[in-house]
């Protein structure tokens, strides 16, 4: 019996990788060294990596879709597309400051209403009774933050040398187009840059009376709404 060293040498010397297999490993080693390793050689590492990439792609696509859907919903929500009602007053001042070309308004208030309806005014709007006796001056469609409002102008005074300050303007729009629009028939008053405004709602129609004069000039035209309050105050 040989000694342990010989036994162990003999045992391990008998172990060898087959020539074909050894050549294949050496070839792959050469390819790996040259950076030209075939895909098969990286199979163990590449498979989970590609799966992770695929999952990352799917997740990022899903996240993008969610964000897009959220934006679409937000965009479609009426709240997001509504214009602040507070922009109406400055827009009226700006509109008249730009010396706009206005259409000549018919004196017949029914014809005037028809004209406004024909240009897209809300079907259930009406010209307040307090304005009916006034002389019509002009009418137009005014864009307020992308929403259409319908304007009609009347003479407050019948004096012969009357100017722009004697005009009173009625602006009609859809309440659903505006954020924070008055929700009741009780007029809300506002003053801005020498102009006076009073706004109220009836159904889905929001009305604004405006004049380039102190607020008391509007009062006679709001008596229908303010009379009950004055009575209550007494």
């Amino acid at each position: 019996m040989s000694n342990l060293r010989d036994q162990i040498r003999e045992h391990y010397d008998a172990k060898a990788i087959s020539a074909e297999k050894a050549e294949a490993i050496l070839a792959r080693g050469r390819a790996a060294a040259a950076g030209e390793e075939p895909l098969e050689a990286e199979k163990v590492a590449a498979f989970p990596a590609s799966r992770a990439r695929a999952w990352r792609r799917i997740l990022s696509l899903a996240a993008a879709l969610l964000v897009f859907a959220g934006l679409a919903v937000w965009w479609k929500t009426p709240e997001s597309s509504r214009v602040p009602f507070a922009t109406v007053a400055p827009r009226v001042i700006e509109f008249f400051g730009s010396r706009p070309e206005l259409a000549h308004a018919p004196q017949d208030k029914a014809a005037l209403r028809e004209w406004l309806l024909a240009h897209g005014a809300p079907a259930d709007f009406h010209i307040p009774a307090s304005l009916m006796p006034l002389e019509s001056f002009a009418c137009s469609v005014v864009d307020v933050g992308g929403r259409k409002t319908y304007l009609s102008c009347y003479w407050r005074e019948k004096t012969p040398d009357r100017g722009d300050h004697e005009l009173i303007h009625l602006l009609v729009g859809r309440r659903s187009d505006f954020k924070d629009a008055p929700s009741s028939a009780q007029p809300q008053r506002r003053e801005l840059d020498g102009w006076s405004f009073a706004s109220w709602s009836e159904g889905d129609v929001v009305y604004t009376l405006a004049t380039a004069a102190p607020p008391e000039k509007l009062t006679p035209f709001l008596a229908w709404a303010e009379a009950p309050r004055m009575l209550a105050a007494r």
Partner: protein
Amino acid sequence: MLQAGYRYAIALTHHPEDAEDLAQEAWLNLSRRYGCVESRAVLFTAVRNLFIDQCRRRKVVQFESLDQEAPPELPSIAAEEPGVKGDLDRLLAILRPNEREMLFLHYHQGHTAEEIARMTNQPRGTVLSLIHRAIAKLREAAASASASSGRNQWMILFVFFT
């Protein structure tokens, strides 16, 4: 050199297919990283590290530390250690991977205990202890197998004559 790496891997795993995979992976890793396999020592280190990684992942083999058990001074290994009876492959199978590794590095590769200690980053005493323990285990297993074989022969004769 690849065959040497494979034999070292066989010593660690005692499984031809696992050893082939281990040697191949170590070879390819070195080729990818350094463009070539510089030396046998580098290849052995790569094989060993890879094997330890695999064991840790699988948690099937534990390299137990012998630092605490190692006696202060162990006798050197006899140059002419007598051989063992029986099938060496089966006997080696009962050893731990690090015990087989020590036998391989010492008896097959011809490294001294000091060299193995440097290679495997272990104290020399641990290396000597592992080699002594491996030899003792081999002899014990060989004696046990021989006795068992003797008993089996007597059993066969007994059955044959009755």
